[in-house]
């Protein structure tokens, strides 16, 4: 009710404001004109691709020039407001460093020497090489790495061709451990967009998750709403993040000891009987064993591990319990940190289970989606050999393909050789740990095709680079998400591509034609495809095109609203004790292992995101680069003084394996623990084509030469690298 009254308050005041300004000064006719839009301004509704959240937006074109991109109020994800990257869409279009023409490599791999060719030549070349690989090694020898919605079209042609190895860094390098941990506990993933009901949470616990800097639009909007509504925020982070500045409790934990804290919290909640007893009794499985197990993990035990005072651990545990079930321990997103990630995520899931927040308001909702039928394609040929990323189920709980598994197979040639890579919109050299290993794998290839918008580092190693239109210039697959409100949204071109870039669907289709796979393409233009699907769902295509989004009827999303409390685990319940894990020889209840302290005198390298940048691909966007031209290395102010460094000094980072970073400025700050340093990911570009970003800031990815593999699901933990700082010369400004 509180929330409703706030809304109404806003409405009232907005109306008051309108009366004060417009009504007082403008005749009604003029106001109407203003509402209808300025003269010479054309608007197109589409959705964003600055990240995968895919917020609906409305592009404004004034006098034939792209002017601005605003949120689509009808869209449930953007709720009419975009994040800075979304708003900076215009910069993606105007960026001078875009790929302009298809390129075929002329020099050695990695030297970035190209010949510009026609699309016909480029695609002909790719098709010819693919046929050769298929003839020699089979179609499965072509693998694909991908990111973003645009991949669906390219996957279609490759699946038609007989390929089977498709992987995105989004699993093994990102949210995989979380989904596995939750799946093992609740039987279901957290999903993307997350099924977290942040806006109704009364207590929000963020463990290493830096909402606000990590700019997933709806989540940040809801986070602000929750903060505005007075929810208690508890942030566990070695760094005083933006979220920590909103928190009632900031726990500057020793990196790598989160599971000790989680166990101590659960100890307090179980021993003080603060958990939701009814919920646990009704839905829990193996709680007695769990309760007996956590007895040992007192806050006093956790204290020397985590460095967090026992009383603070107790106080925060009680605070959480006080607000349950509207206590949300956020599962996080990029959680590949220390190698115990899936088990740690399971710990988070269990803590949520104790709070009874799964399926409850202010906790986790049950997402719903619109029922949009697939396009009636002919069946794909069955691949001759199975996927090779996870041979013999080495990682038994990996439920998606592992990028690093494909990389390993490419290197070893086992179980069968991989000879071709398609890389779509992911800068693998910055995304996968240990660049050298990726480069080594690339050297084994007969064909590397990169489809991208900018000449990223991975493009520098490609045999063929295919320039894709940006999302503002193309159609794409429909966006049919599982979300609080079911909806369908459409991407459609706002403006022509400035050069010879092509949309992914066109590239895919043309490639299919050259591979003799035309029968998989009953449609000529993607609009036919989209119309087929939309009409198949009983929706009005013209309306979708006009509004950009069509919302379905709101469905129940909480247990209280009638969603059945189902848990697709082996026991059908929330598994406090996991028999699956036990069967595979893992700990049925998470076990804490102390982290490796690293070499003396070095700092653990932590990394994260900035709100205005997406990975390593927005640094060429003039609007966004203006907000953050390069990253800085966060270093505790006292540690800096000890090293004789001042705020703003230039340094290079050297990791435990001797890799030296590009120069970067020191941010000497109280906002980070003394035993770690922090970099925003995505900087330190080395690709010559990225003129705006070249040599600016340091690349954390380059320093991540070591990684620990999660034994449950094959995720690669990357916060296990240590660096020292060396003074560097300041750059000469041109």
């Amino acid at each position, binding site marked *: 009710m509180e929330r409703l009254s706030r809304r109404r308050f806003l409405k009232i005041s907005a109306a008051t404001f309108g009366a004060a300004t417009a009504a007082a000064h403008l005749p009604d006719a003029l106001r109407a004109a203003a509402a209808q839009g300025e003269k010479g301004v054309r608007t197109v509704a589409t959705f964003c691709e600055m990240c*995968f*959240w895919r917020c609906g937006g409305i592009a404004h074109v004034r006098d034939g020039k792209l002017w601005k991109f605003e949120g689509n109020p009808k869209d449930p994800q953007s709720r009419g407001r975009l994040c800075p990257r979304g708003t900076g869409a215009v910069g993606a279009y105007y960026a001078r460093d875009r790929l302009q023409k298809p390129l075929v490599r002329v020099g050695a791999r990695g030297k970035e020497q190209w010949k510009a060719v026609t699309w016909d030549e480029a695609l002909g070349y790719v098709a010819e090489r693919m046929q050769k690989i298929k003839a020699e090694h089979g179609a499965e020898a072509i693998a694909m790495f*991908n*990111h*973003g919605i645009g991949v669906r079209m390219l996957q279609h042609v490759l699946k038609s061709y007989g390929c089977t190895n498709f992987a*995105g*860094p*989004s699993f093994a390098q*990102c*949210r995989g451990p979380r*989904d596995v941990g939750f*799946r093992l506990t609740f*039987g*279901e*993933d957290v*999903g*993307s967009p997350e099924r977290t009901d942040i806006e109704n949470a009364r207590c929000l616990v963020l463990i290493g998750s830096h909402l606000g800097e990590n700019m997933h639009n709806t989540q940040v909007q809801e986070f602000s709403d929750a903060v505005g509504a007075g929810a208690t925020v508890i942030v566990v982070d070695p760094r005083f993040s933006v979220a920590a500045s909103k928190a009632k409790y900031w726990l*500057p934990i020793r990196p790598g000891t989160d599971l000790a804290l989680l166990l101590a919290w659960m100890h307090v909640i179980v021993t003080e009987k603060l958990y939701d007893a009814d919920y646990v009794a009704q839905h829990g*499985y*193996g709680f*007695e*064993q769990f309760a*007996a*197990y956590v*007895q*040992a993990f*007192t806050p*006093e*035990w*956790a*204290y*020397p*591990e985590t*460095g967090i005072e*026992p009383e603070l651990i107790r106080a925060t545990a009680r605070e959480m319990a006080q607000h349950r079930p509207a206590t949300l321990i956020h599962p996080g997103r*990029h959680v590949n940190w220390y190698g115990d990630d899936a088990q740690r995520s399971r710990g988070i899931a269990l803590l949520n289970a104790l709070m009874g927040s799964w399926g409850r308001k202010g906790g986790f909702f049950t997402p719903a*989606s619109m029922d949009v039928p697939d396009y009636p394609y002919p069946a794909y040929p069955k691949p001759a050999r199975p996927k090779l990323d996870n041979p013999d189920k080495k990682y038994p709980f990996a439920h*998606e393909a592992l990028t690093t598994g494909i990389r390993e197979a490419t290197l070893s040639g086992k179980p069968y050789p991989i000879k071709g890579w398609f890389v779509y919109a992911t800068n693998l050299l910055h995304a996968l740990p240990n660049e050298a290993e990726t480069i080594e794998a690339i050297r084994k290839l007969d064909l590397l095709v990169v489809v991208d918008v900018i000449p990223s580092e991975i493009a520098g190693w490609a045999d063929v680079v295919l320039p894709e239109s940006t999302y503002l210039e193309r159609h794409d697959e429909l966006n049919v998400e*599982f979300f609080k409100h079911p909806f369908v949204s459409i991407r459609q071109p706002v403006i022509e591509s400035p050069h010879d870039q092509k949309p992914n669907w066109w590239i895919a289709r043309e490639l299919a034609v050259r591979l003799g796979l035309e029968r998989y393409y009953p449609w000529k233009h993607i609009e036919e495809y989209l119309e087929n699907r939309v009409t198949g769902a009983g929706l009005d295509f013209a309306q979708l095109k006009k509004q950009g989004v069509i919302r379905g009827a709101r469905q129940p999303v909480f247990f209280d609203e009638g969603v059945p409390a*189902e*848990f*697709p*685990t082996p*026991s*059908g*319940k929330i598994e406090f*004790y996991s*028999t699956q894990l036990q069967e595979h020889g893992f*700990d*049925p*209840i998470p*076990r*804490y292992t*102390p982290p490796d302290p690293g070499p003396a005198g070095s700092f653990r390298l932590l990394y994260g995101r900035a709100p205005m940048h997406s990975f390593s691909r927005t640094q060429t966007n003039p609007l966004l680069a203006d907000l953050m031209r390069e990253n800085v290395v966060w270093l505790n102010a*006292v*540690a800096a*003084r*000890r090293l004789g460094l001042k705020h703003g000094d230039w340094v290079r980072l050297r990791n435990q394996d001797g890799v030296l970073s590009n120069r970067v400025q020191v941010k000497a700050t109280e906002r980070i623990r*003394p*035993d770690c340093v922090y970099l925003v990911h995505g900087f330190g570009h080395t690709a010559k084509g990225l003129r705006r970003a070249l040599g600016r800031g340091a690349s954390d990815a380059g320093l991540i030469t070591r990684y620990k593999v999660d034994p449950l699901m094959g995720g690669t933990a990357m916060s296990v690298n240590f660096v020292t700082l060396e003074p560097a010369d300041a750059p000469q400004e041109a």
Partner: protein
Amino acid sequence: MTAPLFKYGLFGDEISLIVAFGIGIAFGFVLERAGFGNARVLAAQFYFRDLRVLKVMFTAIVTAMTGVYVLSRMGVVDLSLVYLTPTFLWPQIVGGLILGVGFVIGGYCPGTSCVSAATGRIDGIVYVLGMIFGLIGFAEIYPMVENFAHSSALGQITLSSLFKIPYGVLVFAVVVMAVVAFVGAEWAETKFGGKKPDADSLLAPAKTLAPSRLLAGGIVGLGVIAAVSGDPYRGPFARVDTRELALNAGTKADHISVDQLADWLVQGRNDFLLVDVREPAEFAAYHIPEAINVPLAALSPDIADRTERIVFYSDGSIHSAQAWLLLKSLGYSNAYMLFGGLEEWKDSILFPRLAADATPEQKAAFDKRAATAAHFGGAAQTGVAPATGTPTETPKLAPPPPPAGDGAAPAAVKKKKKEGC
């Protein structure tokens, strides 16, 4: 206050420039008074007509040398903080020769040319212009001569340490040498310059005690004292405010308890420097985590910033107290001792005990200590079983029974498309 004042932070960089201006005025004034603004006076040196240059320079050298020696022995100046230009022998020999040639050709050296230019000597002005030209030329050839300019580096070294002659003896020798040189100079002046020694000359008829003879006598006297006084480069000389010490000792403001230190270490705080003042071997055998080893004998006045929080410890209290006293007296405002030293650390932190009649609060606090002990590699010493088990081992738990009901296969996980990170 100990000198050099600037090095001891009496004033900052900016004020030092104003001081430089003042010293420069005095320097220029004295040079001009000495007649060094006149090239003819300077050049006369090389024809034995007028040996003012030698007299002035050597008087200045012996004055400053004995002065700084005496002040340093008195503990007013820390000579080790007075900048000593590093020696590059061959470049300096070659440079000296070139400079000497330039001196006799041009008639000035850089300092004196400034004075001569300031008093209107046109040749002095032209000389300065020539110097600027020379600098530009040198910059252009610098890449070629850079290696030579950095060759035969001996580091910051005094004649005393080079020849292994005691510093004081050397001071005395230089003083004697200077006086002999003065006498020789006066003799030369009478012979070549046709000058008659004036009343204030060392060679004048010994009617009265001329002031310059007094001066010479005084400096020779200081030289004698120096010869028997030893090395001015000695350990730091410091003063202690006893009242402040007494106050500190009274309030224990100078102590850090082992519990506090343990908390700091566990919480990963680094806003202090933990210094183990025992011998390296003892340090190697065991030390508190994060500690650095600075044996008492090696303690120097520049181990850290003077505002840095420093905690000393040794086995007991005596050595750390000595270290503390030394640093405190050197102006370290934030030096502390670990109360009870390593013994207390072992007793309370590594191997804590719980009294049999402990109150519940004490018991709760003890749990924390016991865990901390384990963290630091120790173990709680008590008959009472600690509340904590051995949680790092794999739990040996019987799996729970299969869930009640028919255990029907649950609904399949809904297939959702996932992308992105």
